[in-house]
């Protein structure tokens, strides 16, 4: 009995000595590992973004567009579109045609028109051009504009060289303004897959110039907009500029993964997400294209 107690006491003392000796070192090592792990996680996410950007979304989007344009047998339409409706919470009650068998393809369903009276056009000077979620809105009083809180994109990269106005100014920002007492304001609206995918003129305005940037087709969902600064300056987009009652006005349709095909009804020459180099820029003087508030302007097609 005596020997057993002595052995236990010795073991306990040994354990306490080891614990007190190695505990501080272990703590330091653990904190160090946490720090390294946090660093690794940060680097990995950056690497993941780089890999993500390298993925050939333009090609896959074109393939997806061709698949989505294929006619679906009438017997399968309710199932296919019904699945899409459930997946993306589509509000079919607003559609002009609620019979799912009417839509020949997923592309046709995606660009379904609204029924008459489904939307009320407000008397305000500027209204929403589309259904969606506001990513950001407010004054844009510098060359760096917020795409989401704290993440910016460059105004000049986004619009490109100011060729539509004869006014010259040292500052790109000021060269856009008709009245120097004014400032620019912006509104970014994200269209989710289940939303109505046509867009309308937000006010009475005249478009005079169009610039099409062939770019990447990264997703533009709010989560990625927080991760990738300048997201809207790298994606495929059609920029329309002109004037409204206060001066400069622009409306830009930015494509995204599987939705890179932008169609503008008053600009039939526009061709987006076509084969070829990714960094092409195509410009067109439109003359005077007058748009009335609420008038149908264009749509995003699958592909």
């Amino acid at each position, binding site marked *: 009995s005596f020997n057993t107690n002595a052995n236990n006491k010795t073991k306990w003392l040994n354990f306490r000595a080891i614990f007190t000796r190695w505990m501080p070192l272990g703590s330091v090592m653990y904190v160090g590992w946490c720090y390294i792990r946090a660093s690794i996680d940060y680097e990995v996410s950056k690497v993941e973004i780089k890999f993500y950007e390298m993925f050939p979304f333009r090609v896959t989007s074109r393939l997806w567009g061709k698949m989505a344009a294929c006619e679906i047998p009438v017997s399968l339409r309710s199932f296919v579109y019904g699945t899409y409706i459930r997946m993306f919470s589509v509000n079919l009650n607003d559609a002009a045609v609620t019979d799912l068998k009417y839509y020949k393809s997923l592309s046709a369903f995606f660009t379904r028109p*609204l029924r008459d009276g489904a*939307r*009320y*056009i*407000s008397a*305000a*000077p*500027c*209204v*929403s*051009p*589309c*259904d*969606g*979620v*506001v*990513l*950001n*809105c*407010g*004054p*844009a009083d510098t060359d760096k*504009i917020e795409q*989401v809180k704290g993440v910016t994109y460059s*105004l000049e990269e*986004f*619009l490109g060289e100011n060729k539509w106005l004869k006014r010259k100014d040292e500052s790109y920002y000021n060269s*856009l*303004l008709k*009245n120097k*007492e*004014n*400032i*620019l*304001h*912006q*509104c*970014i*609206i*994200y*269209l989710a897959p289940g939303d109505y*995918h046509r867009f*309308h003129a*937000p006010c009475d305005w005249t478009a005079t110039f169009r610039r099409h940037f062939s770019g990447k087709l990264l997703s*533009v969902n709010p989560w990625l907009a927080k991760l990738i600064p300048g997201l809207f300056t790298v994606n495929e987009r059609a920029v329309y500029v002109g004037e*409204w009652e*206060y*001066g*400069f*006005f*622009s*409306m*830009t*349709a*930015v*494509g*995204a993964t599987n*939705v890179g095909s932008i169609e503008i009804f008053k600009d039939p020459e526009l061709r987006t997400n076509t084969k070829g180099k990714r960094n092409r820029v195509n410009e067109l003087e439109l003359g005077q294209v007058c748009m009335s508030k*609420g008038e149908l302007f264009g749509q*995003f097609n699958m592909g």
Partner: protein
Amino acid sequence: STIILLFEAPKDFKFDMAAGDKVLVGQSLTKV
């Protein structure tokens, strides 16, 4: 896909919405 409006207006021009709000076609963007 995304629609971006960028336009000139007086400094006191105010939006009647904030980030995260759901909007519909024709809904007022501004305070009348």
